[in-house]
Each structure stands twice: as C-alpha cells, then as structure tokens.
C-alpha cells in the first residue's frame, strides 16, 4: 500500500542527525517492545512480511509522528488481535479472559529460532524470467496489500544486476496470499531515470525486486 513507510525520495525531513552516544534502546519500554515482538512472532502465527504490513497500516500522519518502536507496538497489537491470539477486549482492558492454548517459546527454542533465521530462500529449480544485463521496467502497480516495490521505482526502467535466486514473494506472503516463490533480482537504476536530468549520472540505486514486479523493457 502507498503508506507513510514508503519514504524513498521524500523531501523536507531535514538532516539525518546522528546521536553522539547511540544507545541500542532509549527506554525500558523499547527493550520490552522489541523482545515482545520477537517472542510473539516466534509463536509462528504470522510471517515477517505480515509483520511489516501490519506496521505499514498505521495511519500515515500517526506513522510520521511516532517513533520506531511505536510502529512495532502498533503492528504487534494489530497482529495479536487479527490472528486471534488476543481479543480486542483483552487488549483494551489488559486482563486475560482465558489462557491461550499455545505454549510460550522458552529460551532454548528461542535461541534456535534466532540462530536458524527465517526460511525466505526456497530450494527450487523454477526458471528465472530475467538474467543479468537484461533491461526491465517495473510494473506501475499500487496494491492495497503489502508490496516491496517502492513507489520511486514504479514505472521506471532498470537493468538486472544479478539474480539472487528463488525467494518467498513478500507481496504475496505479506498479504495472506501464500509464499508464491519466484526469482528475486537486484535491479540497477541510473539516478537520472529515477530523479530526472539533474540527478548525478554517476549515481545508481539498486533495488531488490521479484519476477512479478517486472516486465521486459
């Protein structure tokens, strides 16, 4: 969806403003929000794409006015209710109406989940639609569901830089439509193709895009 999360190319946010000390977390609630998100995710009721899509649905004005871990908290509350782990009533009152049938993930299993990571790459001999050096155009699509094709590349032409292999298609997976495995590529865009003739011709932007994002150009 065309949400506030899709920030590439926006202007007016000011300088980047790095902090001098850079603590990993800035408050105890950030630590807890981070850990709760990973621990609830480890229950296996949603995938990382659905998790991103939940955060992306935070209303744009609110998204831009809140901090990073507030986005996480918004997404976590949304998923817990949508996937039926918590009722809206329980979330509102903070009181458990019933204990869950699920078992919480303990430290041993959690450390294994972290070590193993996600199964995004798929072992498959599915043929690639494109190969390195080929010219492509990004489809100009504006789905209401999840998409990993940023607005700033839609309708633009680029060149396949390399083929990463077959991966879960995030747009489908994040929109509850299943993994739809396909090739994911690095697509190279010349900066003037994205930003107009005043852009530096020595600059390129490389974006990971899947078969379903692309047409031959």
């Amino acid at each position: 969806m065309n949400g506030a999360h899709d920030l590439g190319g926006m202007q007016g946010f000011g300088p980047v403003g790095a902090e001098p000390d850079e603590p990993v977390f800035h408050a105890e609630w950030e630590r807890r929000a981070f850990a709760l998100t990973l621990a609830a995710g480890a229950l296996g009721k949603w995938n990382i794409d659905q998790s991103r899509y939940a955060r992306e649905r935070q209303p744009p004005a609110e998204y831009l006015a809140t901090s990073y871990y507030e986005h996480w908290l918004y997404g976590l509350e949304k998923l817990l209710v949508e996937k039926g782990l918590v009722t809206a009533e329980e979330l509102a009152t903070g009181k458990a109406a019933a204990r869950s049938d699920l078992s919480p993930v303990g430290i041993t299993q959690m450390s294994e989940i972290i070590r193993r990571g996600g199964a995004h790459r798929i072992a498959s001999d599915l043929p690639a639609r494109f190969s390195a050096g080929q010219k492509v155009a990004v489809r100009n699509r504006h789905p209401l569901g999840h998409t990993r094709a940023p607005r700033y590349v839609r309708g633009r032409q680029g060149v396949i830089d390399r083929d990463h292999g077959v991966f879960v298609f995030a747009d489908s997976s994040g929109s509850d439509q299943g993994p739809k495995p396909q090739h994911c590529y690095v697509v190279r865009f010349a900066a003037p193709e994205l930003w107009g003739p005043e852009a530096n011709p020595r600059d390129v932007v490389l974006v990971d895009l899947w078969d379903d994002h692309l047409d031959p150009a």
Partner: protein
Amino acid sequence: MGEGHHHHGSQAHGEDHDHHHSDVPSDPALRVKALESLLVEKGLVDPASLDYLIDLYETRIGPRNGARVVARAWTDPAYKARLLAKGGLAIKELGYEGRQGEDIVVVENTPAVHNLVVCTLCSCYPWPVLGLPPVWYKSAPYRSRAVIDPRGVLREFGVELGGEVELRVWDSTSEVRYMVLPQRPPGTEGLGEESLADLVTRDSMIGVGLALAPKVTA
C-alpha cells in the same frame, strides 16, 4: 528542504483505531507494560525469553562482528574472494549467522566505487554482523534522502566523494541484507587482524563512513 515537520499531536491518533480505546495516544511505556503482563498472563510469552532477547541484542551482537569479518578480508585474499562471492557463507565461517542475516551480500568499496546501504521501506539491516540499527538508520531523514540525495547524506557524515566516484545505493527491499567492505586505510600494512578490526567502524560497513586511520604511535 527545511519546511519542518508536521506536528498533528492528538489528532493524528484519532478514534479511527480499530482497537485503541481513547482519543489521546496512550503512553507507549504504559501500553507495553500492559501488553507484556497480558501476554504473560495468557501464557503466550515466557518472561525469561524476553530477557534473553534483550541481552542478546543489547550486549552480545554488534558491529564488532562485522569488523572482524572486514579485518579478515583485508588480511586474507582467499577469504575476501569468498566473502564477495558468497557473503553469508564466508561470514558463517567466523561464526556469525541467523535472524536478519540469512542471505548477506557484501559489496566492496574501491577508489572508483562507493557503496551505501539503506532500507527506504522499513529498517532492514544485517543483524548478525552489525547488531540492531542506530536510530538515524531507521529515521525518515535517512530513509527518504539516501536514494535521492546520497551525496548530501554522505557530506553530513563527513564523507566527500570525488566527482569521478560511482556511488551505488543499495535499497534493502528483500530478505537479502547488504554490508559494505570498506577500503583498507593506508599505513596499516603491519597491523594484525585485531588491530585492523579496531579501525572498522559500524558506519564504514553501512557506507556512511570510512575506516579509521591508524593511530600514530610516538
């Protein structure tokens, strides 16, 4: 640029939420506290696992891991070749693997090419080698500008690229994670891996900085 931020205050947190109960945004600290006690009470999370996760990412996994990878690549040409060909596998040789680093691609800075990594859509970052990202990496200014004004962003970090240098900006839109192999600074010929790792900053592995010059010893 510089028109300033929008500050909608409470009107940005309206009653259109499908699960929040008030017109005013509640304090995230209170919300998180209530949520944690609810999830523990329901038997959905184990408090010990929460403490484990916080300790892991706050104190155990950080950019020192990536610095060791870079130092190895600077001193071992065969390792560097493996790292640039199959980043994730070469990184695993040093024991770093897992969540948010399942597929890592390492891109090399040279006198002719400078690489910069961003995630415009969220905050994708190679956790096993760099830890959790700093606030600025996840912020709107960096995510918006890194693709449209990368040289301006680099200038803010004190990096001025020559006009002849090709600048490659990697927008991390898939589950592949990118890490920059910075250039080895001059004057480091005699240094061992541990001393070299001290020169590898986190910023240099994102591409917003360069590796440090060695300290001159008297």
